[in-house]
């Protein structure tokens, strides 16, 4: 069976209430002491066998973080987070650094199987759809448990491994680029991440190489009271290309859990990076209890001429989403794109968007954002488009559409547009619409149930963005959107 179908079927099979990934895996865990201190950071660094410079980097970040204040400008509200009530490191006890899939705890593999991730490499052996293979790095709480297709990627010169390994094996590369897009001092959550990040993926594509397969990371928060602080660093060297997918899930909990990730992308001359996310962290129950706080800093640097960075995201989960995947268009003729679908239902709060910073000449950017609000949720698009005074010929097109389902939700659009160069051309379009009762009746008259009709109309609304996703993700995303909107009508 091809991976796509298998994934869909498995996702369908996991039928636990509305949130389909709400199960917990019984694995013996090793944790750091609760709370945050220099000692905890030393503990994490030691666990990862890091060199001294990395530890210093973390400690500097921690000192800086102590002086910072949690940002409060986003249109979200939540109880104060007690940063000393969180475990900053949790790892499955056996095999902290497994050499192959056989060494991975079978319970963890079962979890990924339940999630529909074809970690096992049976597919190539069976020769099924060899052209659509996906290399997967799976991160379980604080450590990466399995990375597939490593050898084949190595043949192409592609480095794809847990960042903790990269720090040991490619310290010069990591040191050169880590924090070069999102500086240690960037913002409260990014600085926290810099101090305590535990794992994530590292990708390096050498000059002129087109990565032979999609790269993918699945993040799973499992342990109670655990924060997940992953760090992803992707470097596309001159003339290279890579498409990277990221998926996230977590079990159901009564307490909120913190997820504060940092993703840095660097595209050098003529390089292209496509970064796609399907975010499905646990959104909390109908009353808003539990759910993940998703405070994430994602930024791409089009450092070279003619480079391209594309962010595509499908956001259906999390109690609170605070996330603005951005592009710094530094290289002349570089291009940044942001395609987003943000679905909120129940009591979810989303404050998400992008920043397109035009620095180089003739840089272009495109923003297509589709927000869908249902239930009692609040869905805000917040975006910045700016042109530096040297950004001659900068061009942006922005389109923000919001769709409301029901009459207790809210959609907000907050665009910031700053141009310091008279030749810049920025366009902004925004619409807000509601699924009308007449549309629903029309669809139902033709035989669609209320839920089928909603799913169809919503899929039409998000089509422009779904087309940007790699095929297997598009199908999964479509299903996810339907699932997250279940019970939103009637």
């Amino acid at each position: 069976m091809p991976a796509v179908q298998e994934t869909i079927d498995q996702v369908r099979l996991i039928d636990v209430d509305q949130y389909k990934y709400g199960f917990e895996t019984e694995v013996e865990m090793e944790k750091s002491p609760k709370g945050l201190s220099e000692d905890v950071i030393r503990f994490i660094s030691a666990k990862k066998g890091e060199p001294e410079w990395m530890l210093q980097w973390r400690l500097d970040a921690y000192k800086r973080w102590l002086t910072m204040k949690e940002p409060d400008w986003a249109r979200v509200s939540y109880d104060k987070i007690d940063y000393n009530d969180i475990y900053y490191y949790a790892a499955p006890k056996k095999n902290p650094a497994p050499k192959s899939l056989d060494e991975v705890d079978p319970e963890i593999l079962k979890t990924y199987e339940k999630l529909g991730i074809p970690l096992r490499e049976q597919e190539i052996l069976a020769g099924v759809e060899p052209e659509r293979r996906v290399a997967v790095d799976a991160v379980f709480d604080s450590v990466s448990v399995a990375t597939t297709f490593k050898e084949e990627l190595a043949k192409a010169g592609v480095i794809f491994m847990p960042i903790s390994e990269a720090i040991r094996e490619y310290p010069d590369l990591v040191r050169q680029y880590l924090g070069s897009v999102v500086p240690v001092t960037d913002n409260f959550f990014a600085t926290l991440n810099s101090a305590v990040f535990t794992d994530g993926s590292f990708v390096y594509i050498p000059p002129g190489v087109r990565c032979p397969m999609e790269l993918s990371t699945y993040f799973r928060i499992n342990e109670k009271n655990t924060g997940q602080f992953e760090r992803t660093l992707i470097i596309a060297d001159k003339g290279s290309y890579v498409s990277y997918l990221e998926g996230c899930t977590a079990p159901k909990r009564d307490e909120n859990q913190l997820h504060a990730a940092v993703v840095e992308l660097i595209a050098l001359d003529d390089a292209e990076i496509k970064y796609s996310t399907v975010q499905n962290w646990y959104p909390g129950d109908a009353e808003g209890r539990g759910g993940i706080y998703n405070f994430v800093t994602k930024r791409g640097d089009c450092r070279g001429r003619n480079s391209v960075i594309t962010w595509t995201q499908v956001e259906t989960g999390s109690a609170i989403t605070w996330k603005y995947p951005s592009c710094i268009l530094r290289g002349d003729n570089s291009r940044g794109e942001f395609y987003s679908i943000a679905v909120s239902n129940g009591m979810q709060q989303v404050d998400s968007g992008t920043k397109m910073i035009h620095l180089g000449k003739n840089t272009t950017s495109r923003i297509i954002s589709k927000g869908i609000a249902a239930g009692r949720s609040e869905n805000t698009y917040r975006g910045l488009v700016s042109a530096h005074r040297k950004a001659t010929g900068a061009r942006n097109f922005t389109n923000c559409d919001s769709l409301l389902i029901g009459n207790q939700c809210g959609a907000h659009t907050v665009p910031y547009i700053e141009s310091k160069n008279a030749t810049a051309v920025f366009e902004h379009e925004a619409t807000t619409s509601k699924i009308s009762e007449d549309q629903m009746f029309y669809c139902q008259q033709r035989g669609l149930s209320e839920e089928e009709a909603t799913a169809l109309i919503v899929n039409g609304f998000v089509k422009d963005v779904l087309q940007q996703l790699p095929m297997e993700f598009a199908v999964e995303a479509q299903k996810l959107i339907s699932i997250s909107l279940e019970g939103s009508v009637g």
Partner: protein
Amino acid sequence: MLEIKNLVVQIEDKRILNGLNLTVNKGEVAAIMGPNGSGKSTLSYVIAGKEDYEVLDGEILLDGQNLLEMEPDQRAAAGVFLAFQYPLEIPGVASMTFLKATLNAQRKARGQEELTTPDFIKRVNAAAQQLEIPKDMLKRALNVGFSGGEKKRMEILQMALLQPSFCILDETDSGLDIDALRIVSEGVNALRSPDRAFLVITHYQRLLNHIVPDTVHVMHAGRIVKTGGKELALELEANGYADYRESEAA
């Protein structure tokens, strides 16, 4: 086939249907004519199950099944089809996608297997050809940017595909030029069969020259006030609805 007994309907405290009785037999094409505000469109919406209407009394039976107890999609699966006067736009959803979703939803509800894609495409193409619908129209988002005539043809295409047993045409002739009227009427006539009944709602005799009815009902103030053969339509065309208005005034 369809039996309506003493139907009383109101919307926002306003009585629209006042004890309406109507029977349409299998294979019959029944026309309903009447002045604006007589309740014609309300009748079609109530049969199809639109929410806003409050049914105070009466019943609607389709082959003995009580339609009033069913959701709109269940009624559709039972064979009710309403060709809308103003078909709705569904942005981003290709007409082809919509057709496939609705056909398969109905088949599923009836316990039939879903159609395979080649089978489905064959059927759509055959029906589209008859209605002179070009293929690129099927790729466009449903009814978005369609002309009045294109929208009506799309309604009849859906009818041809879904093969309903009871079809309601609500002012299908409105907004159609002569050519479009001919195409749409031919499409409807091709679907006439001993197993299928039609309820054709219209203001004007014009449509009934193309779709010749077996019976004509005159509706006024929420009731059927006169029933006759196709010649009744011609009579109305000549004399207007004045007679019925006067009778009410008297």
